[in-house]
């Protein structure tokens, strides 16, 4: 069947078996190998993509389910020229070790920040708790999401919060 959808902001169409896994479609047809696979069973979170804005696992989705949706992969979150604040924060604050989980982590974090611009550390840990980082880098991942959230908030709020933290 022909599947049309919005992929990283661009309208795309491709021929695919309807039951093909979305992760395979994205990696093999569109070359979006930032979408990782680690378990094929929904247990590692590496294959997460944003579907209509919410993080979903592309290893559990069928190609047919993408029809008419808006899909964002890590490649669409930001670019080398203009990285997303989350991507910058991950790189700056040591949230990337082997980095194989990073795309899934970033998708989970992007989903969170879209709903909650000022999450606390517990909320961040909860939001990325479905993405396994076998390098054990959770502390720095949570910190990076915190920093990105700060960077994404409008200026005055950011300043006020910094002040609050400094005084605490």
């Amino acid at each position: 069947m022909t599947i049309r959808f919005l992929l990283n902001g661009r309208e795309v169409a491709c021929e695919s078996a309807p039951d093909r896994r979305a992760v395979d479609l994205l990696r093999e047809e569109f070359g979006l190998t930032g979408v990782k696979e680690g378990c094929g069973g929904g247990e590692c979170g590496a294959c997460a993509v944003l579907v209509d804005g919410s993080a979903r696992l592309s290893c559990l989705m069928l190609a047919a389910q993408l029809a008419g949706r808006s899909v964002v992969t890590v490649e669409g979150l930001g670019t080398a020229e203009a990285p997303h604040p989350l991507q910058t924060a991950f790189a700056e604050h040591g949230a990337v070790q082997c980095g194989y989980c990073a795309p899934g982590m970033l998708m989970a974090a992007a989903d969170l920040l879209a709903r909650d611009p000022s999450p606390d550390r517990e909320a961040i840990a909860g939001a990325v708790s479905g993405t396994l980082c076998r390098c054990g880098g959770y502390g720095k991942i949570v910190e990076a999401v915190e920093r990105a959230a700060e960077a994404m908030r409008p200026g005055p709020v950011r300043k006020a919060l910094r002040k609050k933290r400094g005084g605490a």
Partner: protein
Amino acid sequence: MSRVHAPRGLAELLALRADLPGAALMAGGTDLVPRSRARGGLPEDVILLQDVPELHGITSGKGLLRIGAAATHAALLADPRVGRGLPVLARALACLASPAIRNMGSIGGNICTASPAGDTLPPLHVLEARVELAGREGVRELSLAEFILGPGRTALGPGEVLCAVLVPRPEGFSLQHFEKVGLRGAMAIAVVSLAAMLRLDGRGRVAEARLAWGSAGPAVVRCPAAEAALLGRRPTLSALRAAARHARAAVRPIDDLRASAAYRREVAGNLLLRLADLSSR
């Protein structure tokens, strides 16, 4: 290769269901896809529920909440009628699998999977929720206990679809609690779980208790004896200990990879004691 059908409404869905009795219904796919993978592939026909609007919304009726069976766990959590109105369910949803799974998986899927470890099942039991099933012959309602027959087995008839979960609005249950014992902090399958609702009278005594355990038997275990043991008493440690003894006698757990039956039995009782901490706050 499987054929994938995407009906656009309930009527179309029921027609497909009648034509393809072997087809699998797929809401979020969070159970169907991994299970099929282990079996070597999806069934020949898969019917997607994502575009059937009748299965999605959450509506308030007289004294109850009608939750579309394909509503995702995340959608429920985000809805204040669940998030604030049904704390016992909200707590279970908040620790169900992982955020991405909650964005995909549905409450109807959790019910139809009929796993003894299904996280929403003990809360739905204590809420005395009912399920609405639609077939070409019409609509019928069953209690959860009538619907779930055992591990992986339900009373869903051929040609039928689980349309909605009907949750009576609980009145006066000031203490609502859900706890899952898992082997890690997230993405954990319940080793044993407890859903509890207590209605207290003006003097803090239990006027009504509803208790249900998950992963403690082939289906959710209710324990009238434990509930009765609390009636008329404040939920103190000693009252809860007495109820716990009944609970341990009532559960029918099994040994598996995660824990022994003996551990589950002991902890099924122990979990009640947490209510003392909550009620003293």
